[in-house]
């Protein structure tokens, strides 16, 4: 029997070539980042850069502490707000929603996840920021803002509604569909007889959700939350619109601030020299953070099968 081997060989070469391209790209990107960061790294040192609180063009001193803090706080706040809402949405979709509504709401969630982030940014700037400033901010200022010690952290020093808190809300809104989608898929994987076993000893719907469905899916859901965290860390356009971009001390969650991504988006245009190199170093920091988050997700998801 005679078969032509040539198509096979060509196919193999093509796929191999594509795989090599990926690796070349990653290595190239890392090299570029390292090369471009080098002047800043040599001038400040990695840890002094990481924990440096200044970002000062006049004195040519750059440090990542404030953008890094902004990124961590906005992401953390976003998760705190998004996780309960997303899990609630997923529980509703899988366990409580009338069957007729299910696919409609499911599709709506998928659409939300597909909206380009710049649209979230514009909506955040023109709709959400003023809305939060008028309706929500006074509530917090009047309650948490009156507390001793941590009170000032919840007071309002700047008008306009563009601030760290608004950025966190926008991030939360953006990752909710993502977490909800993953949680919904996980809940759908729970074997019906496992749920029935819980009902079978007289559990209510709610008890079954809280004590069987959530524990059964916790690894998958945790993986989803971590991946969403990675997204929030790297989200740029939406945050750049609503964070306010103020390189100053963080005096309140209602003050304009910076994140790693917002600094990069805003300053690349006009930067040169040491500032440019510092922006590349920020990029490197973000990449490392994202890599750590991804590894964590891999580790959590892997431990499920061991």
């Amino acid at each position, binding site marked *: 029997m005679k078969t032509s081997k040539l198509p096979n060989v060509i196919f193999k070469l093509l796929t191999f070539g594509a795989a090599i391209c990926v690796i070349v790209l990653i290595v190239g990107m890392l090299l570029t980042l390292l090369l471009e960061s080098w002047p800043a790294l040599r001038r400040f040192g990695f840890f002094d850069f990481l924990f440096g609180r200044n970002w000062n063009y006049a004195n040519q001193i750059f440090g990542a502490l404030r953008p890094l803090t902004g990124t961590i706080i906005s992401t953390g706040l976003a998760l705190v707000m998004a996780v309960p809402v997303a899990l609630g949405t997923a529980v509703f979709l899988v366990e409580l929603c009338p069957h007729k509504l299910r696919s409609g709401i499911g599709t709506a969630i998928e659409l939300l996840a597909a909206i380009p982030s710049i649209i979230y940014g514009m909506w955040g700037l023109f709709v959400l920021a003023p809305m939060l400033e008028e309706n929500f901010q006074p509530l917090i200022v009047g309650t948490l803002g009156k507390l001793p010690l941590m009170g000032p952290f919840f007071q309002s020093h700047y008008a306009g509604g563009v601030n760290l808190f608004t950025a966190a809300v926008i991030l939360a809104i953006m990752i909710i569909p993502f977490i909800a989608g993953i949680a919904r898929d996980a809940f759908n994987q729970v074997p019906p007889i496992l749920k029935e*076993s819980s009902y*079978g*000893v007289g559990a209510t719907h709610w008890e079954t959700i809280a004590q069987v469905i959530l524990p059964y899916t916790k690894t998958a859901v945790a993986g989803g939350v971590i991946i969403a965290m990675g997204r929030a860390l790297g989200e740029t356009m939406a945050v750049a619109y609503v964070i306010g971009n103020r390189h100053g001390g963080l005096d309140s969650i209602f003050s304009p601030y910076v994140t790693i991504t917002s600094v990069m988006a805003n300053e690349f245009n006009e930067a040169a020299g040491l500032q440019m190199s510092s922006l590349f170093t920020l990029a490197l920091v973000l990449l490392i953070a994202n890599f750590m988050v991804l590894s964590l997700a891999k580790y959590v998801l892997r431990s499920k099968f061991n």
Partner: protein
Amino acid sequence: MNMDLMTVDNLDFYYGSHRALKAVNMPVVKNAITSLIGPSGCGKTTLLRCFNRMHDLYPGNRYEGAITMRGVNILSKQEDLISLRSRLGMVFQKPTPFPMSVFDNIAYGPRLRKVKNKNILQERVEKALRQAALWDEVKDRLNDNAAGLSGGQQQRLVIARTLAVEPEVILFDESTSALDPISTQKIEELMVELKKDVTILAVTHNMQQAARVSDFTALMYLGELIEYGDTKTIFTRPKHKMTEEYVSGHFG
């Protein structure tokens, strides 16, 4: 002396428009084992799941007729399903340990009933595990995840979990079909042992098992109950030709 704990009266069941049970009538004798046999798809599982109203979890299902227990129709809309299901426990074809420790699996039902006292919980767990003939095998690993037990142990764990809520009835749906012969034998012995405390209704496709363990047997076919009687009669002198053919392995 036999006493009927429940009676099924003219029971019809519909999955949407599909009529899966047709005018089923039979008693369920107290403190006895009743086997439901019949070819695949004849409605055994469907009938079993009427008793604890499992069908109510899914939309479009409908009962007609009655299952009477102490003068009350448990198929009525007013029936409290939470309490019904804790009186009629269920064991499935495959073991269904919850993703938690052995202890927490058994304590699951009592905790739902707000038993919080640690000593009482401990007593209930030990009693249930002893009843399920599992205590000796797991007493040193109560805090281990239940997923680490063998298949047969997991199935006895599920039986213990069911027993921990002190049910009157346990419904078994081919609960040994996924197990090896030794585990199967253990569960069969357990079922016979449990008779003194509970009433058992067991679906099986294993004729020998029905003959070995059950006191009464019901043969179903295409959603109808063909014949009901004490097991000995069903297997030796059945009234219907179909029963004779089925128990002798000629069809099904």
